């Protein structure tokens, strides 16, 4: 189906189902219950899940397939955001042209940086991309203020020219990004008993874009081009002596991956029409590296999972404070309660980065295939229990062709 084999198609369907049902899946707890703080089904966070999913999918096309570790990918995301906001300012509040421009400018920018950076490999490539991204950040922050808004960032204003569309809404406010009349911040609420589910136009738009991006990445992974990229990672010497020129392959992967980052940046601006230089800072580049590695670099679904996990921690785990912990463990004797809370406290709330760092190290050390590999191992364990030794041959085969 859709040019995919049945296994990949099932994966696509699964991701589509998860994305479309996300408002239910991520809101498992009643709105007033003590567990409601673990609900992640609110539009702002769900949008972040899928947008960073797009970013991580794109990063994975470069790092997962070719092995070139870019530490400056956030630059393309930032460029995408700026382009989209400019489109809103100058052309119209429709998100389509804004996102198209974001993808194109990010692609051109990636072409330029990739052309130069790919002359080196390994750590030198990482440092070059980092240097370019930091330069872009510094310039966006200072000299390019007329284009980027500098420290305050680029925002819409009441006197934007906006050729196709009104400068102001009927109420005299700044208009909102939309898709042919459907405003991105529109949302419908569904109350089912104690549960409240929110369906946001912006989220569903982003989710559809993410699904298309995910579908394209499957096609790329399964294409001869994707095979060549894996060959680049595996053995460049053999590739050269097989009559293939590695440079245009890696450059194409770099540009595609930059365009994905631009798409993510454009989507971000479409959800909330502003852009700031901090999106290009190197920690933002580091974050997408964490996402891809955590989820499983080189796997199809891994980066999306990694993006989801990190954004969940950033937004949910970070909100748990000592009081909440005490309320959870209130049933314990006082001394024990205090003890457990004091042990857990450094790892939650503002300390969520610590948890993230520990999980990340554990993944790099023990699970180079990330969460996906972890899932596969658990699944294999279960299957082995079920069918005993007979499954062993099957496992061996599974592990060789597993993606």
């Amino acid at each position: 189906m859709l040019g995919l084999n049945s296994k990949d198609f099932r994966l696509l369907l699964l991701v589509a189902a998860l994305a479309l049902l996300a408002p239910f899946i991520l809101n498992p707890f009643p709105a007033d219950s003590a567990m409601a703080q673990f609900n992640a089904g609110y539009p702002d966070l769900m949008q972040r899940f899928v947008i960073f999913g797009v970013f991580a999918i794109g990063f994975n096309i470069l790092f997962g397939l070719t092995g070139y570790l870019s530490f400056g990918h956030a630059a393309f995301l930032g460029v995408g955001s700026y382009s989209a906001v400019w489109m809103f300012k100058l052309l119209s509040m429709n998100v389509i042209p804004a996102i198209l421009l974001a993808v194109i400018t990010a692609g051109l920018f990636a072409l330029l940086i990739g052309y130069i950076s790919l002359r080196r490999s390994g750590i030198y490539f990482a440092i070059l991309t980092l240097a370019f991204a930091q330069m872009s950040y510094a310039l966006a922050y200072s000299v390019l203020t007329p284009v980027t808004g500098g420290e305050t960032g680029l925002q819409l204003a009441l006197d934007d020219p906006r050729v196709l569309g009104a400068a102001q809404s009927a109420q005299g406010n700044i208009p909102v990004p939309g898709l042919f009349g459907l405003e991105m911040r529109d949302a419908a609420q569904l109350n089912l008993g104690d549960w409240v589910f929110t369906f946001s136009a912006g989220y569903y738009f982003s989710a559809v874009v993410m699904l298309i991006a995910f579908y394209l990445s499957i096609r790329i992974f399964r294409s001869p081009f994707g095979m060549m990229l894996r060959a680049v990672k595996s053995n460049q010497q053999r590739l050269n002596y097989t009559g293939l020129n590695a440079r245009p392959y890696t450059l194409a992967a770099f540009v595609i991956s930059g365009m994905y980052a631009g798409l993510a940046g454009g989507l971000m601006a479409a959800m909330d029409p502003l852009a700031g230089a901090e999106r290009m800072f190197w920690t933002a580049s580091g974050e997408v590296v964490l996402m891809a590695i955590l989820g499983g670099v080189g796997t199809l679904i891994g980066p999306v999972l990694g993006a989801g996990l990190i954004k969940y921690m950033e937004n949910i785990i970070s909100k748990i404070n000592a009081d909440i912990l005490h309320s959870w463990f209130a049933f314990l004797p006082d001394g024990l309660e205090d003890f457990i809370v004091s042990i857990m406290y450094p790892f939650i709330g503002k300390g969520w980065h610590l948890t993230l760092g520990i999980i990340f190290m554990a993944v790099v050390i023990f699970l180079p295939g990330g969460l996906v590999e972890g899932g596969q191992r658990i699944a294999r364990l279960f299957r082995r229990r079920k069918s005993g030794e007979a499954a062993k041959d099957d496992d061996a085969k599974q592990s060789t062709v597993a993606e």
Partner: protein
Amino acid sequence: MGILEVKNVNKRFGGLQALGDVNLSVEENKVHAIIGPNGAGKSTLLNCLVGKLIPDTGSVMFDGQSVLGRKPYEINQMGISRVFQTPEIFGDLTVLENMMIPIFAKRDGAFRMHAIESAEQEKSIIDQAMAMLEDLNMADKRDFHTASMSRGDKRRLEIGMCLAQKPRLLLLDEPTAGMARADTNATIDLLKEIRDTRDITIAIIEHDMHVVFSLAERITVLAQGTPLVEDTPDKIKGHPKVREAYLGEAT
């Protein structure tokens, strides 16, 4: 006039004359061995043939075209395939994928952006790859990851990957170096079969006399960067100069 013509090639590294006035002609559809003691300049010569080194003077012509200054992938596209001392294959890919890549390179050239097509749908490429794997008796290993294979199998696959491109010249750099006896013999048998069944020129750089004398139809002896003699294996065996320069030391 041979398919590969090396004329007056000199190469110095600092004060060291690595190659001095090398003249060499490899005839089409022959197995030509280049032998010599360590430091005779065999590897330097090979690197000049594949674009990794550029000689200081002289010319290297393949089928009437100069190979000098070209990149390795361009030289491969001219019809020269190379087998390395330690097998160079794509360790993270499956056997079948390893075999498909050279066939893609042959069909599509050095770069083609086929990012949306499915590799699984490339029937003719897969058929050719499977045919080659059948020839190598490796068809049953098509889904194996190559990193876990034995050295002999890796070598077999590497040679197969080169053959799959139907090259006009196959360069082999000590193809049995570091191999167990059984793997060495299997490799010799494979190369013999290739020699006898395919129209292909083979240039082989080798240390192991057993390999050389079981395969070569013509032998050049290199000593201190200069060709000493060039002749048939039988003549080489009895040649006094060769005994002195090489066999005498080796035995």
